[in-house]
């Protein structure tokens, strides 16, 4: 790990409190696995200490040349993954609207047929020998990011007898503090499965769900190559430290 983006003074304020009415609650019985994996006791509220305000920051030296290209990063030389070629791009922002430079984004997904490359996956759709399904990148000075992939297919899962996940890409994001740690899923504009999915419906507010639906952006396409979807991600904002009693010595 190394620290880049040193043109901006690192912030040391506590993070805005999480709005747990906006996020999905822990217990969402229609998503069956949550029943035995949800705490029943109240969370203990803890205004951030240094342990939550700080967090690891990753340098570009982490990245390999194909880490942001899922079409090629598992493919044999000269070959590529099968499916709808797309670019996913956007910005990592915080709740104040500021870009989050240096944010590490990791993503994973099924192939074009909805099949994951994973030992525990039993779906009969075939693996693509040229598709692994993982990628990562680091946001630039403005919080901007982009990667290239194929559009994943929907897949069935053993929840209800006939539940299908909408096409989605999983995102894991690191901001600048461990309290900002977030995992979410990106969905695709116009997919009718979104509104049937018990995992999507763990989110109580329709407006919150809509923030996870990437927009088709024809202006960002590469003609005769790939379409583009725009997906912005918002992490928790930080409080100002200007009137707090600080002990860090700054």
């Amino acid at each position, binding site marked *: 790990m190394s620290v880049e983006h040193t043109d901006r003074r690192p912030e040391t304020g506590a993070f805005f409190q999480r709005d747990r009415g906006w996020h999905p609650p822990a217990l969402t019985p229609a998503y069956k696995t949550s029943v035995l994996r949800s705490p*029943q006791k109240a969370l203990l509220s803890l205004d951030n200490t240094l*342990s939550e305000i700080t967090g690891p920051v990753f340098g570009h030296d982490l990245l390999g040349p194909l880490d942001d290209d899922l079409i090629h990063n598992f493919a044999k030389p000269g070959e590529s993954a099968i499916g709808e070629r797309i670019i996913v791009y956007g910005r990592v922002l915080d709740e104040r609207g500021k870009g989050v430079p240096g944010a590490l984004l990791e993503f994973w997904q099924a192939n074009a047929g909805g099949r994951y490359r994973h030992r525990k996956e039993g779906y009969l759709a075939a693996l693509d020998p040229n598709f692994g399904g*993982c990628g990562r990148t680091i946001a630039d000075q403005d919080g901007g990011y982009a990667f290239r992939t194929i559009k994943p297919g929907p897949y069935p899962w053993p929840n209800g007898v006939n539940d299908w996940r909408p096409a989605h890409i999983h995102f894991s994001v690191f901001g600048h503090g461990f309290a900002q740690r977030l995992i979410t899923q990106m969905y695709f504009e116009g997919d009718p499965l979104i509104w049937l999915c018990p995992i999507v419906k763990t989110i109580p507010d329709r407006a919150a769900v809509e923030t996870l639906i990437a927009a088709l952006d024809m202006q960002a396409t590469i003609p005769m190559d790939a379409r583009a979807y725009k997906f912005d991600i918002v992490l928790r904002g930080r409080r100002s430290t200007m009137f707090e009693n600080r002990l860090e010595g700054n």
Partner: protein
Amino acid sequence: MVQALNRLKESPSQTAGPYVHIGLTPNFAEITGVYDRDLGDAMVNAGTKGERIGVRVRVLDGTGTPLRDALVEIWQADHAGLYNSPSERRGTADPNFTGWGRKATDMETGECLFETVKPGRVPFKDGRLMAPHITFWIVARGINLGLHTRMYFADEEAANGEDPVLARIEHRQRVATLVAARKGDAYVFDINLQGERETVFFDI
């Protein structure tokens, strides 16, 4: 009408799902050749200062069954109580210690092992020292929003007794859910998601 605050809302969380390993520990998931090594698999190297320790972790559901598809991340100070983070303004942390680790629980046993160092004490907001602790973040299939908790050390009884965070736990018998005892070569920390011995989780 008043002026608009114009704040954005945090992106809502979704479960990491059962195949989280593909993205976050691909080599563990047998997807090789994309990344040299899984991010967060090594926190220490030969030059790391401090007492080397192991931390054995299991995450158990409401029936007491270990999760065999959980992903656990830890974040902690170095031996001197400094974080390896740009937001650390009290000094420079040990450059041979990342402070951050990531492990998937074993697909058969449900256990994972962190090789790290025992952290030094870090000040609470009012300057009192917190007891040595490791911050945990747990995601898995069935967990809609990552769970935060802390692990403290059973052999730090005096420090634990004056820790300002542990002091806030109203039901004193629950403090023990955050305190790991040493067994053999490692501290053993069982995280109970639900039930009588439910671990204390934090809204941080």
